[in-house]
């Protein structure tokens, strides 16, 4: 069952003789929390409503027909998803190290991991140049040896988004890992499970809600990221332009309505994607 103080109400299953009355649900939410939750939701949703009121709805179909918009939209989806994938691959391990590792300076490492969140976005882009640009600490060697240069490519978009969004995933997953019950991992180890196997089969399923939450944060942040991306990857039509840079471009070109229309497109698509991720993706299998 998913709610704590909620009473289950169940009839016989299979035996059709006595049909159970329709269950009347009771939520497990303390009523005292309903007021702030309501205020908070209004606060978050009213601006979106305001935006919709101002949006040039008639313009929308035209906008969606524009090659450049469709291209930027597709690139946004692709890069944000790749960034999320990359963040999962690298970020979950980091979260494990932060949650379960015992080493001096762990607090410092955790704080460093959050720096990309704090860095003003354009400076984040500058930092990426400093590391991976043609003149960067690592980038210059790569460029000297292979001639490859990362900035201003689609991969650069992914890298910039990953840099900015991965910390969200890491911190969320670390929080979940610290809340996980270690008794099950102990049991797994006495059953011969290596730390890796126990992690995969016991710990991961337990913290799945936290990982799902982290992935959602990461994806959404990557989708909306602007400053670091536009600095490190530029906004070249057909190559590195993503939705936020398309929006910026329209604003600069003096078409705020178009900018709002494009933002709405981005917003609606992300809502659809996130809402259609089945609930049970982020629900646990708890007890005993």
């Amino acid at each position: 069952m998913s709610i704590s103080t909620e009473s289950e109400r169940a009839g016989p299953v299979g035996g059709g003789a006595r049909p159970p009355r329709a269950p009347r649900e009771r939520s497990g939410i303390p009523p005292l929390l309903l007021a702030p939750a309501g205020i908070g939701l209004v606060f978050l949703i009213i601006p979106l409503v305001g935006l919709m009121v101002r949006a040039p709805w008639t313009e929308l179909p035209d906008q969606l027909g524009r090659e450049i918009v469709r291209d930027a939209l597709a690139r946004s989806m692709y890069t944000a998803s790749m960034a999320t994938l990359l963040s999962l691959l690298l970020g979950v391990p980091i979260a494990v190290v932060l949650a379960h590792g015992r080493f001096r300076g762990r607090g410092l490492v955790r704080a460093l991991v959050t720096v990309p969140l704090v860095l003003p976005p354009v400076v984040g882009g500058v930092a990426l140049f400093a590391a991976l640009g043609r003149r960067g600490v690592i980038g210059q060697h790569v460029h000297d040896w292979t001639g490859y240069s990362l900035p201003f490519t689609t991969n650069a978009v992914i890298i910039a988004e990953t840099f900015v969004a991965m910390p969200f995933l890491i911190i969320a997953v670390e929080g979940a890992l610290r809340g996980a019950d270690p008794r099950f991992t102990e049991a797994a180890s006495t059953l011969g499970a290596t730390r890796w196997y126990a992690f995969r089969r016991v710990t991961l399923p337990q913290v799945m809600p936290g990982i799902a939450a982290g992935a959602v944060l990461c994806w959404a942040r990557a989708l909306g990221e602007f400053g670091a991306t536009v600095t490190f990857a530029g906004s070249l039509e057909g190559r590195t332009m993503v939705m936020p840079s398309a929006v910026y471009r329209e604003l600069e070109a003096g078409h705020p309505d178009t900018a709002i229309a494009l933002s709405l497109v981005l917003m609606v698509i992300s809502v659809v994607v996130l809402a259609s991720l089945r609930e049970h993706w982020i629900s646990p299998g708890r007890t005993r």
Partner: protein
Amino acid sequence: NDDDDALVPSGSSTPAAERRELMVFAAASLTGAFTELGKKFESDHPGVTVRFNFGSSGTLATQINEGAPADVFASASPATMTTVTDAGNGAGEAVTFVKNRLEIAVPAGNPGEVDDIEDFADDGLDIALCADTAPCGAAADKMFAAANITPKPDTREADVKAVLTKVEAGEVDAALVYHTDVLSAAAGKVEGISFEESDLAINDYLISALKDAKHADLATQFVEFIQTDAAQDVLKAAGFESPGATESASPSASPAS
């Protein structure tokens, strides 16, 4: 050497048939005019594609200094161009190719009943200006000092578009922006009011070919092209003034287009 620049399909052995790509990094306020000029340049130079990277001048300067594969830089302020040339990334002389003049921008209907630059000293009005570090802000400060007016801004924005956004949203009663911004603003949302003191501070836009240009010849040609009369006409239509022009703006209010 940038022969194998990842951005550009690596040089083929048949240069004659090669499609060449000219990379222009240009200030965001040039978006409309330069897009049009790019098409023109392409039709004048078969086989050439002009690709733009529009952004704020500061960001573009940073990108160029970080080794971005740019051929030409068109900046909205002398300071950002200097950042690039001081780093030794310019090629040849940077030239002023257009100027931009300040104008009062008010929301449609002029709710604050602003009619003069002196209204900027009115505490009761919501006023937006550019930051003193931004070209439009520096120009405004210079102008106010010369006109002996103490403005009472409610916000000072890092760039002019941020200022314009607030006028469009009706959140301020008046702001100082460029004439070009008023022209580019969304139809019917912003009204421009020109004023005499705008002569006191006019902003220069500079353009330069770049040292690391992959196609130095094309870069030079593009810089020259921008200074041709044909190009200047397009820029004028967008509200810019020619570098030589010193006469004051027409005193009539210029409606948003």
